[in-house]
């Protein structure tokens, strides 16, 4: 309220469509007449899509093996037993052998799966330094506080890469051997370890610090490897394009999973004779068993999976589409019945009057 006299003799209001709330408008109605065909159409479309998805998911093959090594579950239990309570666990290897009666249609992808592993724990998830991982020299030597207790080594050196995620890097390794004929020699199947991480991650987001005198090792001088790592980050691989922070296994691991049971891509099988898939024959996966999971009740699995346009095997989407489509049709019918019956009733009411 101002002190001037209150507006006496207000101006004639503007006569525009907006001020008079008369803007031209579309006034749709969700009446049964419109909704019915909509429901039927949507239902039919969904069922069609669902069928397609379901069959496409069914066409995907998966081969899975739990190698956690709980007692009595194959030869990995020895390793599991051996590693019990010792840190760092001794290197141990075990094998999973299986036979394929027919061609395992390719391309085949090799995944490892961990369960009961909470990569989505908040304290775990923040325990990383993205600046350090992007190769910033200053961040390399001064990891953020969130990395604690994996921020500084016992000697007081900054840890690179710091944090709990990096420290708990999955370090089992697998090699696949194929025996074409029974009794024949095992041939190593080439595993393509590239292209398993997002292209943008290992090309943009993850960068090694600038080389010092052409050497990556010197660039990391003055830092300590994470306590659980047997070797420093620049020794992760012999390939200079796959070592340091841009090691693809490392990059894959650093993308924390959404749920406590998760899969991560280990390798693709697409080279040589195996580009069309795994031919029939006997196979053995040689597992170098390092990673302890029994301490937290976890499981480790190894999965061979083929991939279609929609990714791995996942019947959920197809079934969901089918269910929703049928529901739509069903409610469509219910509504049709209601529509007709109540319309009659309304007419009768009217007649009575």
């Amino acid at each position, binding site marked *: *309220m101002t002190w001037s*006299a*209150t*507006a*006496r003799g207000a*101006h*004639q209001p*503007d006569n525009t469509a907006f001020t*008079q*709330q*008369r*803007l*031209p*408008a579309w*006034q*749709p109605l969700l*009446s049964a*007449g419109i*909704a019915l065909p909509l429901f039927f159409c949507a239902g039919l479309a*969904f069922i069609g899509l669902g069928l397609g998805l379901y069959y496409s998911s069914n066409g995907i093959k998966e081969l899975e093996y739990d190698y956690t090594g709980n007692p009595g579950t194959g030869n990995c239990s020895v390793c599991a037993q051996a590693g019990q309570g010792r840190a760092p666990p001794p290197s141990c290897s075990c094998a999973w052998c299986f036979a394929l009666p027919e061609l395992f249609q390719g391309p085949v*992808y090799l995944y490892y799966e961990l369960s009961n592993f*909470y990569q*989505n724990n*908040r*304290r*775990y*998830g923040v325990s990383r330094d*993205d600046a350090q991982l992007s190769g910033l020299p200053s961040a390399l030597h001064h990891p953020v506080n969130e990395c604690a*207790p994996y921020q500084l080594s016992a000697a007081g050196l900054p840890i690179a890469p710091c944090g709990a995620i990096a420290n*708990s890097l999955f370090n089992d390794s697998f090699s696949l051997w194929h025996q074409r004929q029974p009794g024949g020699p095992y041939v190593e199947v080439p595993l393509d370890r590239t*292209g398993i991480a*997002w292209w*943008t*991650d290992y090309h943009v*987001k993850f960068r090694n610090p600038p080389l010092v005198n052409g050497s990556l090792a010197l660039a990391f001088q003055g830092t300590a490897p994470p306590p659980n790592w047997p070797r420093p980050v620049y020794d992760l691989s012999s390939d200079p394009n796959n070592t340091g922070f841009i090691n693809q296994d490392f990059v894959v691991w650093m993308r*924390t*999973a*959404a749920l*406590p*049971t*998760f*899969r991560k*891509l280990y390798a*693709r099988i697409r080279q040589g004779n195996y580009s069309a898939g795994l031919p029939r024959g006997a196979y053995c996966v040689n597992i170098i068993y390092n990673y302890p999971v029994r301490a*937290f009740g976890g499981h480790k699995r190894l999965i061979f*999976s083929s*991939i279609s346009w929609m*990714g*791995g095997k*996942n019947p*959920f*989407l197809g079934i969901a589409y089918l269910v*929703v489509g049928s529901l*739509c049709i069903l*409610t469509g019918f219910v*509504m049709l019945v*209601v529509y007709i019956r*109540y319309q009659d009733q309304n007419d009768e009411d*009217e007649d009575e*009057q």
Partner: protein
Amino acid sequence: MDCSLVRTLVRRYCAGEENWVDNRTIYVGHKEPPPGAEAYILQKYPDNRIVSSKYTFWNFIPKNLFEQFRRIANFYFLIIFLVQLIIDTPTSPVTSGLPLFFVITVTAVKQGYEDWLRHKADNAMNQCPVHFIQHGKLVRKQSRKLRVGDIVMVKEDDTFPCDLIFLSSSRGDGTCHVTTASLDGESSHKTHYAVQDTKGFHTEEDIDRLHATIECEQPQPDLYKFVGRIKVYHEQNDSVVRPLGSENLLLRGATLKNTEKIFGVAIYTGMETKMALNYQSTSQKRSAVEKSMNAFLIVYLCILISKALINTVLKYVWQSEPFRDEPWYNQKTESERQRNLFLRAFTDFLAFMVLFNYIIPVSMYVTVELQKFLGSYFITWDEEMFDEESGEGPVVNTSDLNEELGQVEYVFTDKTGTLTENNMEFKECCIEGQVYVPHAICNGQVLPEASGIDMIDSSPGVSGREREELFFRAICLCHTIQVKDDDDVDGPRKSPDSAKSCVYISSSPDEVALVEGVQRLGFTYLRLKDNYMEILNRDTVERFELLEILSFDSVRRRMSVIVKSATGEIYLFCKGADSSVFPRVIEGKVDQIRDRVEHNAVEGLRTLCVAYKRLVQEEYEAICTLLQAAKLALQDREKKLAEAYEQIEKDLILLGATAVEDRLQEKAADTIEALQKAGIKVWVLTGDKMETAAATCYACKLFRRNTQLLELTTKKLEEQSLHDVLFELSKTVLRCHGSLTRDNFSGLSTDMHDYGLIIDGAALSLIMKPQEDGSSSNYRELFLEICRNCSAVLCCRMAPLQKAQIVKLIKLSKEHPITLAIGDGANDVSMILEAHVGIGVIGKEGRQAARNSDYAIPKFKHLKKMLLVHGHFYYIRISELVQYFFYKNVCFIFPQFLYQFFCGFSQQTLYDTAYLTLYNISFTSLPILLYSLMEQHVGAEALKREPSLYRDVAKNALLRWRVFIYWTLLGVFDALVFFFGAYFMFENTTVTSNGQVFGNWTFGTLVFTVMMFTVTLKLALDTHYWTWINHFVLWGSLLFYVVFSLLWGGIVWPFLNYQRMYYVFIQMLSSGPAWLAIVLLITVSLLPDVLKKVLCRQLWPSATERVQNMCVWRQDHLPELTPLPLCRAQPLGHWPGSHSNLVTLTCWESRECSVPPPWLLSPMPSPSQPGTQLPWPEGAGRWTLTSSSL
């Protein structure tokens, strides 16, 4: 000196009148009183600075922040923000800090702008020049430097800079004219009088010699009350004391007219002026919607706390196994391990609170405020509510109550000036039982009406003739009318002959009508000059000396003047309501006049009775002293005056009565009918007498022919006790109620018993009077029970406070209905303030009602659009706004709650910080704001034509707990769909064709994307009125979300210390199944709501939905069937005027609108005959019932 001081003190504290310490003493011109006079304790008065602004440049930020954080919601978010700053929480402080900052900034900018405007206005006021008298010279100073006691000169057309005591004027008679248009809106000139003893001081030097002190009450806001006295010291040290009343007081804000200049002494300055005191009160009413909103907020707060508690407890249960609490891959730091368990649990609880705090919508309050502020413009812009005649449009004084207009259950309306025009026309007068009608009288020739009027006494006789003259003189003299003659300042230039062109101005239109009426009968009031009233009796000028005016008040309901004729006879003329005059009459043809008065009242005319008494000199002197004593009193002056009046106005001789017609306002009946159809009970509260009021009620269709009237009046109470009457009435009413429950709901069926109650002020005060044994509440309950079952109630003979009392009684009855009071006069202010919604009619009786109201409208008929259209719109809009806000935040936060079960209760957020921050303030804020400004379920025309649609929203229908729970459950369902849909998508598989896997941020982004689309599309489903703005904002919001996400994830942002969103959104979109999942999940989330909408529309359509169906049906069928160009030409929602009523009604009966009524194919039968009522479809009430039970 000491002795005198002690004496003064003793007198002050012991003696009756001196005991009054609440007064102030002013030395005129700052001159000390002569020694020996009473000593006063000097007080400190503020200077004349007006401060309406709340803030200064320096204190704006702290004060505004303080004000804003006093609001509970803002304070809550501040606490959350501080918690985030202090403890280690899952979300960064930005997520709550930024929205809070946004909300606070928006509010602060709005308030700052308003305050800046006030500052500008203040400065203009404070710096305008004022003329002072200092040491006999005229000095110019800024207005703010004015002090109490300064002598000020004001020129013509200037406004008074502060409240002044009028000392002298340039006019010889010591009067001046002022208008108070900016104070109370009355544009008439009012005459004020200078103090008798100082009116001779005409020049600066003179006035500087004045030696006086003024004693007056401390400032109080009543514009029309003032008591004080002035003591003028003369040379010889003797002093004269004079009373000061409001006629000596010139108020700040008023303007001097017709007077060259005046001198006055400042007594109230700055913030103590009456104007300032009047502007300080603001409406503190809260709407029902706001109350529901707060209730919902509390529910959500409980949900929030229980969620946090559940999660905290579960966290510790889950963590009881050490390998879960601290697995080898995720060890704690030493300090974390050593922290106290309870402290840890407490911080965890707080962290969960922070995580889920978004369930309380931060931006809801600011959106609601914005909606109300912007939305109220549609009312002021409304062309239909603009009155061409007066050039007035509707005024919104508070926008807080917009939606309350859609909730009104009781309308209390004043009669005069609200239902009627307040445009009085003199109809007839009855003198000594003989009736005179001005139309039948030629100028100057008094002819008794010959035909049509029943002559009660055909022979006036000599005394009759004399009385007749006296009667006309009485009417000419007994008033407070001013004659407005613009072209002359001092009066004498005008010849008496031209007096007929004079314009009479009075605060009471009745008086003007009467004086104009007798002018046609040959008596013309000319003017008041030098305390002589001049009347032109045909062609001779008679002069009467005006001795006293016993002014009108609404308690006495009469006024009197004492005049002295040229022959020296002293008369007292009294004019007033019959009830207040008849008991004081001792002589005259009382019975005949009473008959006539009653006859006129039944016709709906306003009647006044006129009486007189001749006074002898001694009597007059006694009266004079009596009045003088009362007028001089500083304490209880009102009461003493009233007593004096009571004593003076007795033993009168009745002269006659007058009848004045007050025409109904246009469309008043139509409006009342519409309101009743809308289920609103209309009560008329008036000060008029019963018969007049009842006649008006019939005229405006409040009572119909078949309405059975129940009377609860003084007359009836004389026959029976209150107890018996009440019980009898309630029995009558309840009997009917019992047998016709169903019809009672619709309340309008023609064949049902319709009850109307008439109650008068006296009976009401009996009912309201608390009895000694405390059984009063019993009567009240009974009375309320009767009222509830009456379709219309008329309360007559109401004092202003009684009006408020009635409103309060209904307001506090057990259903707590929403009340609306509408009135135009000062006597309606109390009820306007009391009711939930107060509406002022910008009428002839000044602007007091309009100023004190929440909304002001030019005419009563505008109430219809105000309630039925604007109220309906605003209610629908704001209820959707409130419900939607809670819904979208449930959708937002519930997945986050579910996620805790999958991340070890570690308070991991599901969404990225940017999404958490922007969800409420930018992604989803604009569509709902626009919806809440533009939405129309049905067009304005349909709402006006079908008042019953109002019942669809009555009683807070859209914000009931059932509806609220539906929305909340819908939110929970949607959240479950989003979360578990994404969960099953991500479970143990990859969803990309290159075999790569997604992480937790992709998971969250998927949930968020589905949610964004669902929540926005849900609003789209609810929108019935799609203008281009809605399209733009709704689809624009979605587009903005997508563009933002692309940008946010497309760049490595240098200022962020994490890059977790890098390419997440784009990667997600590169996956086919993600697209399919988004489509699927959105469909599933929206499906139940669509299903509910369709089924409800089909099975239990509400009246609104029926009308909507109608529109569509008309569109589909009508143009094909009948070549009605009207239908095609009209835009959607605007039905052709003439046929629509018919179409709608038949459709109602046919129940199903897709079947065209057969007659529509043939030429239209004529709609129901004018005058007869359109039959209301039987089912209307029932439909409303069932539709609300969804």
